[in-house]
């Protein structure tokens, strides 16, 4: 029989760098999850993606065991990385902070595709282009 789920926790953790300090420790500790065991598992699983911030969904079961899945890094983070900017624009409608080509945005689309609710790459491109627009990144070409 499947184990009874008591909670689902969603948060973002830098790949390979989970540690018991806030927010990871208190977020998991309140549910009775073994914090150090999670950190070890997460760091081992994500060691190859070091440097990326990964959204993670942790399922906590009644017997205090857990399982987790990691998703692709947030679109905003990927766009900023490609555009080589530290922060997005505070007034995206007035101040543009970077320019990206369609091909560069497609790189992000390819990484995000598995986590997006889109039928094809064209639809996924429009979702990512929306995020870029919100961040003050102009798409040229």
């Amino acid at each position, binding site marked *: 029989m499947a184990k009874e789920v008591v909670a689902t*926790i969603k948060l973002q953790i830098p790949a390979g760098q989970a*540690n018991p300090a*806030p927010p990871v420790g208190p977020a998991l500790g309140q549910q009775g999850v073994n914090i150090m065991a999670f950190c070890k598992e997460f760091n081992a699983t994500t060691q190859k993606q070091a440097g990326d911030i990964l959204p993670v969904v942790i399922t906590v079961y009644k017997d205090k065991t857990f399982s987790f899945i990691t998703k692709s890094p947030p679109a905003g983070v990927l766009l900023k990385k490609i555009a080589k900017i530290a922060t997005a624009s505070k007034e995206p409608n007035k101040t543009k902070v970077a320019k990206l080509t369609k091909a560069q945005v497609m790189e992000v689309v390819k990484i995000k595709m598995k986590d997006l609710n889109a039928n094809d790459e064209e639809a996924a491109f429009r979702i990512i282009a929306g995020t870029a627009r919100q961040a003050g990144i102009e798409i040229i070409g």
Partner: protein
Amino acid sequence: MKPLLSSPKNRVLVWRKWVASEKMEAFGALAGEVAGKCPILTSAPFGKCGRVDIYPADKREALQIKKLLGGRILNLSPDVWWKPQVPRRHPFRIGKRLLVVQDAKQKENLAQREKGKSILIVPAGLAFGTGEHATTRLCLEAISSAPVFPFGAFLDAGTGSGILAMAAKLMGCSNIEAFDYDAKAVAVARENASINGVRVRFQKKDLSRITPGKFKADVVVANIIASVLEKEASRLLSFLNPGGHLVISGIRPCEVTAMKRAFSGASLISKKTSENWCCLVFGKRSIDSDILKSLGNKEME
């Protein structure tokens, strides 16, 4: 908020708001943007509400978030976020010589029954290694059966709670070096050493920045992760005396081949697997065996 010390004695400040489940994702994204921090979304299956938490750096930041988004500011005590951890009720037996317990009371109760055995106290702290995790257990088993004890020198790279170094000390090793790159882990290890009344030098050092060959030990243990072990393989081997043993863990079964390749300078002595984690023991050839081999070759000629 003060930084977390060696054990979770400090309260943790959290901003919290309960929202309808269907709005949680959108509200979480907004809260994260306003606070400039990662929101934590917690929900129960089929629950009508979910909670959005943000851990601010200080009270001023928490009040700022509250002013913009409403919600509450809580001061979580360690009883709320640390104590619910599954308590360890039974001691761990490592080989025939060592027992690992959680507190002094457990040690007291066991001391009369288990005469002649070394008992190590390792409370659940903010550093890895209470003995429960398969990697720690496998490392403890490997070092307890290493033939160089009790006289050899011991090095623990990425010590965490200091459990492996303290176990080596209790097994009779006198020359012990242990380090970790995380200051919090070093503080936990020092606290654990004082609880156990053992003298081990724990230092804050980054493995990747230590000069190769700076330490020399008969047993080198590194319970880290595969990518770090692979990168620092030659450095770890440089710490090993001829005839010594290198114990590595934190490796998944699928990563064993890469580890064998990275540590090809030594020969694989044993491989143990537990709960989808592996522990490998490598041996560095002793000078004597090299000489004997070369002498044998000359005789053959």
